[in-house]
């Protein structure tokens, strides 16, 4: 039984599509202020009441960036990750970053749900698609990253942290960035363990590991390794940077902007906004306001304010 407000939401959304054009403002005012569970209810009720999939109707009515942000937001988080991951496997290596993002910033449970959603939607496993669409070093790193089911406990073995920090340093010094040990450590150890290892790395060898991984700024594999490290240890800093680059880029990278906002709105957007403000001296709201327009801008702003709503 849908609650009164869910029924109302469905009616309003239906009205937003009625007649010529679309009442985007109405769509924003409803969807941007609902959480994933509520949106799920709305989709179910909409389908029962009108016999159509809300997403298909949105697809029909909306266009471009605005459509994409609404569509992504309306998907269930697991479906969203599956959708983004699938898209990423079909693109060039620059999209590998999206795979790293999904594999490393989600919890083990969230990643698992995404993989289940992937089975259901694409009739294949995420691992087989990632493996099929990558090769060489990228495959060696990405397949284990998406395949892993990390232990989520806080236990840390300090002896192991020391020995693995040493191994990492050794391989990096030899420029053996794709070495099995490097990949093994990053792809299989728990996040707590990796944190301990990298802290020890810094204590013992003086630099942040990412600084040592910056030897060639053009090397794409190194960039992916750095992204992996950052996603595993400091996701809010990683996302701040993605947002900053997306906004500062001439013309704006709406894909990245949309992706980060829709995937983090319910998770850690508040912390990301703080990071953004600290790093850029302006608020994220302000930056988005300056860089985007219209309904797209309105939706984004509504979503990043989501936690405060």
């Amino acid at each position, binding site marked *: 039984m849908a609650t009164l407000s869910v029924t109302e939401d469905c009616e309003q959304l239906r009205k937003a599509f009625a007649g010529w054009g679309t009442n985007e403002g109405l769509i924003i005012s409803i969807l941007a202020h609902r959480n994933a569970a509520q949106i799920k209810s709305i989709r179910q009720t909409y389908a029962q009441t009108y016999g159509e999939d809300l997403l298909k109707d949105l697809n029909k009515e909306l266009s471009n960036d605005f459509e994409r942000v609404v569509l992504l937001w309306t998907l269930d988080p697991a479906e969203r990750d599956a959708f983004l991951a699938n898209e990423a496997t079909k693109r060039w290596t620059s999209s590998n970053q999206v795979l790293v993002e999904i594999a490393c910033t989600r919890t083990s449970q969230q990643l698992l749900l995404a993989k289940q959603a992937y089975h259901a939607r694409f009739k294949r496993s995420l*691992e087989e698609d990632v493996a099929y669409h990558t090769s060489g070093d990228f495959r060696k790193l990405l397949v284990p990253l998406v395949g892993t089911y990390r232990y989520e406990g806080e236990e840390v073995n300090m002896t192991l942290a020391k020995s693995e920090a040493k191994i990492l340093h050794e391989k990096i010094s030899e420029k053996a960035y794709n070495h099995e040990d490097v990949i093994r450590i990053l792809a299989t*150890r728990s996040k707590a363990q990796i944190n301990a290892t990298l802290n020890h790395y810094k204590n013992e060898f003086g630099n942040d590991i990412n600084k040592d991984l910056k030897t060639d700024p053009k090397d794409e594999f190194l960039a992916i390794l750095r992204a992996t490290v950052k996603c595993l240890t400091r996701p809010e800093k990683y996302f701040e940077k993605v947002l900053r680059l997306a906004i500062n880029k001439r013309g704006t990278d709406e894909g990245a902007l949309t992706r980060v906002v829709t995937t983090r709105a319910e998770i850690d957007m508040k912390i990301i906004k703080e990071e953004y403000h600290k790093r850029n001296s302006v608020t994220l709201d302000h930056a988005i306001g300056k860089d985007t327009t219209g309904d797209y801008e309105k939706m984004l702003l509504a979503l990043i304010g989501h936690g405060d709503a």
Partner: protein
Amino acid sequence: MISILGKWHQDDRKSYRKGCPQFFIQDDRLFEKWDDRHVAFLKHEFLRLKNAVVLWTMHPWERDARLMKEALVKGPQAYGVIIEVASTRSSEQLLGARRAYHSLFDHSIEEDVAYHINDSRRKRLTKIILCIEQLLVGLVSSYRYEGPKVNEEIAKSEAKTLFAAIKNADKKNPIEDEEVVRILTTRSKPHLKAIFKHYKEINGKNIDEDLDDELSLDETMQCLCTPQTYFSKVLGAAFQNDADEHAKEALTRVIVTRADDDMKEIKEEYQKKYGVSLSKKIEDAVNGNYKDFLLTLIARGE
């Protein structure tokens, strides 16, 4: 045995000891000492029932997690068990085992497999072991699609890829071929069965017959596509006269872990392959309560 031993007095037991010089050796300190090997042998035989019962009563997830852990600790000769568990279970069963592993050992199975094999590699420094590591990590990490949908074009093309890798085996070991590992560790089982079929059409032989048996690729393929063949082979090996302890333990493991799954198909395959029923073989070769327990398990569902 119980009815005899249980009734003996001290003197009876002393006569027994003196009368069996093959089991008991006269020691300098004036007592009949158990021959070490026979004590070990007896302990082993009693242990089998205990192990079987303990394994049987465990939750399947815990069972699989412990089997894999044990295999890791034992080393390379036991890696076949890891392949067996990772490849013959359904995606959900394997996932459950991985969860149980978290609870039991505070690590993920993938980190332990990667680490242990890596460790042994340090001592032996061979590239092949590295490839085996990648195969095993891939297998335990897999979360295969379980639906029936198969892309026949891709299956055909991957059968050709595997064929080419096998043809090239004298120059490069198939296990070093990243495409071979990719296909085996990520493709769904229906897809792999389609590959099996296409391979036979190309080459006239079953792919597992063509794969090198030193590096477990053939076992992997069998486990994934025709598990009954694999299991009946393992059971057959357990009954060999020269079977070592590892081979014998497989009897408990296979029967306990498959009793609820595909035991019926395994029995059929065994009968076909060895010309005698599995129950008869167990009747002849095994003793005591352990035998009864095994027979009860394999008779389930009939």
